Structure formats: C-alpha cells, structure tokens
C-alpha cells in the first residue's frame, strides 16, 4: 500500500516533483540507515580542555537521591545527590548535591527540556560549575556529564558520554567518541582510570583552549 501510493504519485507527476518524491524517499531511507555525529545545540560547545579548566569541581559519584525543593521565592529545583565521591578537582564533602532548575511545584511542573536525566544507582563523572547559581550545574550542560558503566567483559568501569557514546580518547584537543551502536564501542571505551589520567594530565598541563570565554 505504501509502495503503490508513492509510486503512483511519482509516475504521474512532472519531472521536478518526481525528483522531489525520489529525494524524499531517499531521505527517509538514509535516515533509517545513517548515524550522525553532532555538536552543541542551544549550548556553547566545550572541548575537553575547556571542560577541565572551567569546572570548579570534577567528581565521580553514585546517584543516591533525586528530589525537588522550592527555593525561597517558590521556584522548583531538582536536587540530585552524588555519594561515594572521588574528587578529581576542587573540594567536596562526603556528598555533592547538584541543583538543576525546574521540577514540580504543587500541581504544575516547570520543565526545562535540555536538562540531563538521572537514575538512582547510576555512576557519573561530572564537570561542575555554578552549582545552584546557573540553570544547569555542568560545564556545557550535557557535555560535562559522563556515565561510568561497568563493562562485564573487560571487568572494568568505562566512560560514555551523556548520549551513551563510548569515549575513546582525545583527538585534536577534544574527546573522541564511538557511537554506542558501533561494535567496537565497548571494547575501545576508555576505562575510568584512563579518563582520570587524561584529566590529571590536563590539570597539570592545561591546553590553550581552556581559557576564559
């Protein structure tokens, strides 16, 4: 039925429209088959040196609590508590409470679509800046959040970005990634220890792009 309808339109149409129909079909097909890398939207692009330099804190932790709190003016904030912390930059106590603008307020919800999502029990490595003072407490919003996932085959924790793509190293000053669908993604993902070493190296020898805006 789909084929009949489409074919009929294309064959009966003038040449220009026939090309458009063909282009539309090809578009749909290619969208089904292609995977696209991407760059920052509605958010400034931050490369790896900038993530390190602009972060006030860099920590690894486990999400142990997610809740909502109204501030003094009645604006809701979503609070995400990280525990079992390993601090790579800055200071933090035994727990770190991250504050994200938005949440439920009575019978209405103030939702900010660009915010990262969290699940209790997950492990994250985060680059924190402006916690409680900005809409999102991460450098570059989702660019400053990485999943720490146990790879059972390698028996080690590996690093994925916010979209679940494997972080495999640094190239041209920025983090290199493999799409999560790639077969080699899990095998080539940096271990947590390797990623921590990259951060330590960047802290010790900052690159030029890590400066101010």
């Amino acid at each position, binding site marked *: 039925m*789909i*084929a009949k*309808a*489409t*074919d009929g339109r*294309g064959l009966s149409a003038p040449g220009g*429209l*026939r090309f*458009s*129909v063909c*282009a*539309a*079909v*090809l*578009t*749909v097909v*290619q*969208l*089904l*088959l*292609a*995977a*696209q890398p*991407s*760059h*920052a*939207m*509605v*958010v*400034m*692009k*931050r490369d790896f040196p900038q993530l390190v330099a602009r972060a006030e804190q860099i920590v690894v932790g486990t999400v142990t609590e997610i809740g909502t709190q109204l501030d003094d*003016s*009645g604006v*809701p904030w979503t609070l995400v508590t990280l525990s079992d912390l390993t601090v790579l930059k800055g200071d933090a106590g035994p727990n770190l409470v991250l504050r994200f603008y*938005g949440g439920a*307020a009575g019978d*209405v*919800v*103030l*939702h*900010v*679509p*660009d915010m*990262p999502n969290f699940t209790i029990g997950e492990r994250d490595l985060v680059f924190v*800046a*402006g916690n409680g*003072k*900005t*809409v*999102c*407490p*991460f450098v570059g*919003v*989702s660019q400053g959040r990485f999943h720490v996932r146990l790879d059972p085959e390698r028996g080690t924790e590996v690093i994925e970005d*916010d*979209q*679940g793509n494997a972080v495999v190293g640094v190239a041209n000053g920025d983090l290199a990634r493999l*799409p999560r*669908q790639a077969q080699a993604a899990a095998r080539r993902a940096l271990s947590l220890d390797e990623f921590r070493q990259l951060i330590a190296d960047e802290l010790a020898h900052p690159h030029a792009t890590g400066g101010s805006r």
Partner: protein
Amino acid sequence: MSRKLIGLSLFLLLSAGRAYGFACIRDGSRDCVRWVQGGATLRSFLGAPAGHLANGTPSWDQNAIDVAGDWNRVGAAFHFTVNVASGNQFVDPCGTGQGHTCPNTGPQGDNPIFFAPSQCGVGFGDIVELVNVCYSSTGAILNTPVFVNNNVLWNAYDGPLHSPVNDMRRVLLHELGHVVGLAHPDQNGQNVVAIMNSHESDIDRLQPDDITGILSLYPSSPSTTGCQLGAAPGGSTHGWPLLIPVMLASLRLGLSARALSSDWG
C-alpha cells in the same frame, strides 16, 4: 531509473525494521504532554538588529515567524500564531504566585520570546537559549516562555555552523519543537537525524523524524494515530502509519538533498 530508485528505496525502507526515534516530553504518568487546544500563540519581542541578517531577513522576529511557519506547514493538527509585539506589551514571566501559571513562566497562555541576561536571575551558564515548559498534572501544556541569552553572539544564517556566532533560525526551530512538546531523541536512546537532537549540527531545517514527532503528538487525520506511537520509552519505534504524512510534509517543506547536504557531504 527513478522507478527503480524508488523501488530500491522502499525495499530498504521496509527491511529497515525500526522507523523513527522522536521523543516527547512526558509527564509523571509517562504520557506525552501537549497543547490540548492544538495551538499556541507566541509573542516575539526579539526585535531587529541594525542591518539585515545573514539569511536576508530583516529581523529576529521574522525568523520566529518563519520557523513557526515551518512547523505549521507540516500539516499536523497544531498551529502556531506568532505576533510581533512591542516592549510596552511585555509581561515579565519571572516571578511566582498569583498570575504565574508556573514559577517564572507568567500568565497562562502568554508565550513570549525575548532576549534576557539571565533565566529570571539564574545564570544561563553555557546555555544560549531555553524554553520553560509549564504543564499541569493532566499533561496539558499551559505556557512556554522562550528565553534568549543576550550575552552571546547571534545572527541568522543557513548551512554550516559558524561558531561562536549562533544561528537564531535553527535554534528557534529547535525550541519551538520543545514548545510543541517534543524532547531530544538522542537523549532517549535514539540515533536519528533531527533538528530536535540535543546537539546542534549543520542541520538547519526540519527532518522527517521531527515531522513524525509532531504528527504523532497532533495527528492530522484518524489514520495518523496519536501518542500510542510514542509509547515505547523515549519515543516511537512503530512509525509506519505516519510514513505517508511525513513524506507529504517533507514535500511541502521542500525537504531535499540540499537540506541534508552538509551532513551527507
């Protein structure tokens, strides 16, 4: 030749299995939130720069009108109306209590688009533009002010990104997708080409996945079934009933190889 190409394309299409990966904003019961009246009136307070913008438009407001038109032409049962407003009509969405539908969103039904130095006193951080989506416990969207960071560089242009200059047109196109009720497919386990992905790319026009998303939220006819298409976590995996409407919408928008050339090299 064209017949063979279409046949091959449809064969690949039918053998591809999963179709689209659009995602919607979900309420506590995991249903998609939406405008129950099937439309929203936006008031643009963006104004105009001193000269013409790089894409030839005379004002920021015109870009808001244009991208609303892009979404309207899809043919969904949803319609944007954009009014260009003057400063003395501005109702500050910042504040809480009576007169504010949600904290910092202003009165119900008022959906301003405006430049601001902060998000009601909270710093933008690295965000250049965002929308506050206020919805009720029943999943009805009540209002959606759009905040544009006036601390960063803006122009309006087509084609590849020219960082650090932000393209108002494609950013507004994305944000109006949130206003409609769409979320980011790439943050919901999907890997598709879409203006609604969380990351900016050289894509500057609506893509079939975006069109599928709005058609799913606001079906244009009984044959384009509604949000049950998005019942799977993160979005739809069964988009076949929407295929023809999506293709027709693509044709209406003139979606062609040009629109994708920057991505497909």
